[in-house]
């Protein structure tokens, strides 16, 4: 509702807050809280052309900073401001999920890709002419889906309805047993066993049960869910449908991140087509009593809403603040009812497991991490895009495939994951080694590691929901403390302070965001301690005289030359 108000009035006006509060019987504080929580909702008017430029490290590596300044000059608007005539506003935003085709941005919510000076010239002209977005060149909005290496799942042929048919032919309990046997684990990063989640939900007495597909792909450097929803939406929806059959649900929700607004219309068409062909709606696949439908809900710009319970809060029209656990959302989720929340890729995999059986899937990968993983590869490599690998694949093989040489390090799993140096490239993609929701960013030796770490640390401070003290205050302290050291103003004690702060934020925070906010610092401190040490301020004074030499006479008279008879002015 607020998104609609925002679209019409370019912000949430005071009058709308009053009207909504009265009509919905909710306090205005709740509406203001929501509007202030989400990056794409505003209480003050934005430009008629509201531009956001993706501030992911990969965009920065493609020259985003200079482009942003150029755009700012060209349009005569400062970053973070609205131009006086109200025509245009310009802002940074967190990664928009276009790292394979950056620098990227959004205009009025629609994705812009492959930004360069020439395009910016055209865009500036179009804006000054007040041309509607529909008149802009289509290629500005074109989103490629470069599938570089399809594997187990992407290569699988598929006919609509096949997984539902297979599920009913085999039986619901038997299909759940196949999912169990496949050892499928959640693809969103946490790696919870899917069959266990579905079984727990299916036995809950409270009704109704809900199926939520988490398409809030916010981890910087991830875009594989974008590709799945763009090209394989049927297989994702089918996974949701068979999950619904198994857990006994008649309502599904797709939580689509705001940055993927360009997918909204086409996904609605896919849903309608599935309704028309009896794969959604009432008596699905001719099975009396099996009713299930899927509704798409848009996010509004908050990384934290990728966390399942925060996403549920968001779906309920509230700020996305993770809930207190227990109870888990599988027991007490959407509308306080049992809810399965799974990642796009998890449902996609489940569809093929329902058709092929669990054993087929379990034969690929490692014992603890079965099947394959989609990786979104970006950064310093010749062929960024989507790659599918069996779990257990070494990083060096992946780097070879994507054409990365002169590698300084790789960020596996996005900012919340792990930074590995070029000495660790034999490590493997797996839950038991390098766990990843799909982000895979490559950095060559020309990159400054502090640019990366600062970008990630700033990201967490920006995206912290602010609920709990250690994350709300701690992520900002981390950002400031890191800057102090990087700018050369830190002493040895500041480095100790930084490590201690990392652990306090990590060990005391309410949810996974705080838990991983210090990871970029912790993993680079572990892999490159010398870089941090070199950054420290050196002792700035030069002794005016040599204290130890002056003591030589005293030593001779005392006939001593032990350690305690020597003094040093400067701590070594």
């Amino acid at each position, binding site marked *: 509702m607020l998104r609609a108000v925002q679209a019409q009035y370019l912000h949430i006006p005071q009058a709308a807050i*009053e009207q909504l509060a009265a009509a919905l019987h909710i*306090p*205005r*504080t*709740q509406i*203001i*809280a929501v*509007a*202030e*929580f*989400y990056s794409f909702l505003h209480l003050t008017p934005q430009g008629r052309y509201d531009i956001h430029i993706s501030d992911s490290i990969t965009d920065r590596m493609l020259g985003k900073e200079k482009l942003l300044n150029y755009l700012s000059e060209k349009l005569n608007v400062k970053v973070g401001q609205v131009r006086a005539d109200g025509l245009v506003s310009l802002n940074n935003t967190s990664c928009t999920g276009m790292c394979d085709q950056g620098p990227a941005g959004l205009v009025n919510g629609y994705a812009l890709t492959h930004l360069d000076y020439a395009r910016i010239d055209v865009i500036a002209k179009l804006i000054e002419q007040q041309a509607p977005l529909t008149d802009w060149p289509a290629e500005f909005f074109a989103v490629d889906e470069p599938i570089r290496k399809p594997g187990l799942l992407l290569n699988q042929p598929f006919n609509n309805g096949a997984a539902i048919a297979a599920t009913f032919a085999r039986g619901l309990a038997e299909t759940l047993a196949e999912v169990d046997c496949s050892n499928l684990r959640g693809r969103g990063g946490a790696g919870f066993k899917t069959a266990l989640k579905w079984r727990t939900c299916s036995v809950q007495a409270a009704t109704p049960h809900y199926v939520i597909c988490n398409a809030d792909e916010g981890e910087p450097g991830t875009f594989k869910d974008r590709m799945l929803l763009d090209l394989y939406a049927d297989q994702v929806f089918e996974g949701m449908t068979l999950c619904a059959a198994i857990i006994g649900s008649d309502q599904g929700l797709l939580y689509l991140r705001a940055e993927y607004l360009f997918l909204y219309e086409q996904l609605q068409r896919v849903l309608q087509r599935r309704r028309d062909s009896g794969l959604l709606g009432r008596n699905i696949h001719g099975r009396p009593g099996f009713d299930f439908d899927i509704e798409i809900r848009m996010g509004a710009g*908050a990384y934290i809403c990728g966390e399942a319970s925060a996403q549920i809060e968001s779906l309920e029209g509230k*700020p996305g603040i993770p809930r*207190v656990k*227990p109870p888990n959302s599988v027991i007490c989720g959407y509308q306080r009812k049992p809810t399965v929340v799974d990642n796009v890729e998890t449902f996609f995999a489940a569809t093929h497991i329902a058709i092929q059986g669990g054993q087929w899937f379990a034969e690929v990968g490692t014992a603890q991490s079965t099947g394959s993983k989609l990786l979104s590869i970006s950064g310093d490599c010749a062929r960024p895009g989507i790659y599918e690998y069996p779990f257990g694949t070494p990083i060096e093989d992946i780097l070879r495939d994507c054409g990365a040489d002169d590698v300084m390090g790789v960020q596996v799993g996005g900012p919340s994951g792990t930074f590995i140096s070029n000495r660790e490239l034999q490590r493997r993609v797996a839950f038991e080694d390098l766990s990843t929701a799909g982000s895979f960013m490559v950095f060559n030796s020309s990159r400054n590691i502090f640019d990366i770490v600062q970008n990630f640390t700033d990201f967490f*401070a*920006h*995206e*912290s*929901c*602010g*609920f*709990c*003290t*250690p994350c*709300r*205050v*701690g*992520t*900002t*302290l981390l950002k*400031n403390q890191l800057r102090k050291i990087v700018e050369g103003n830190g002493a040895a004690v500041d480095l100790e302070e930084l490590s*201690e702060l990392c652990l*306090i934020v990590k*060990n*005391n*925070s*309410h949810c996974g965001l705080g838990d991983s906010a210090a990871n970029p610092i912790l993993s680079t401190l572990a892999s490159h301690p010398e870089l941090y040490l070199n950054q420290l301020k050196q002792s700035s004074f030069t002794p005016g005289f040599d204290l130890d030499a002056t003591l030589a006479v005293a030593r001779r008279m005392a006939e001593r030359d032990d350690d305690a008879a020597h003094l040093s002015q400067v701590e070594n």
Partner: protein
Amino acid sequence: MSGTLCIDGIAVPFSDGQTIIEAARSAGVYIPYLCHRPGYAPYGSCKLCTVKVNGRTNTACTLPAADGQTVISNSPDLQHDRQRITQMLFVEGNHFCPSCEKSGNCQLQAVAYHQNMLDNHYPHFYAQRELDASHPDILIDHDRCIFCNLCVRASKEKDGKEVFGIAGRGIHKRLIVNSPSGKLKDSDISVDDEAAHVCPTGAILVKRSAYLAPIGERIYDHHPISEVACEKAVLDTQAAKGHASCDQAQLAGQVPQNSGSDSHYAASMPPAPDIKHGR
């Protein structure tokens, strides 16, 4: 369901529906907190009551007590982190204890003393926050707000109004008032509301009441918060003075325990600077 759990080597009985913090309080065992208040719905945001329950980190104010739980609360590590979290609250807002009307009655200040907090440790944020003195009887000094949500819950759950809310994200969190102007004078709060009295710091104050109790005769002037917080609960439950200790077998392999006083932690902290003789 009722039973016994073990907190720092002390056997603590609990009754159905109690959280760990409430079971502990009833038994006279203090676990520091700021966003919690007896009789209020658990919230779990300040993270001061973070404890280890059977080896896993959780907040004592939200986790239901269960039979057989082994809880570590007073370990040096947890106490250290509690001190740091308290310091974070101090640098985030603007807290000037010596000139604050709430001094001596302030839970934040009392918790800081309990945590042996001698400095702010972190650089100040010097947040720019406004004062709302618009209401004839009640004052909001946003400098002192720690986003504990108690006034929000009090207004909603106890007063049947919805005067307060928390908006913003991350470090930009702010307490807001449900009125057309956003000012307290235009809200339907009354000085008799629980929300006007619940603030653990001096962020929401009743006007003309600041010095009714003089400095030196205030709640925490003679009794540390660890005693004050437990006192009423102990009287309520007629708990015995001596604490039964837990089964030693349960404690085997755990981090060293202490008796629940502050002594353990104090020993690990540097001594207080000698102000008289300091340079």
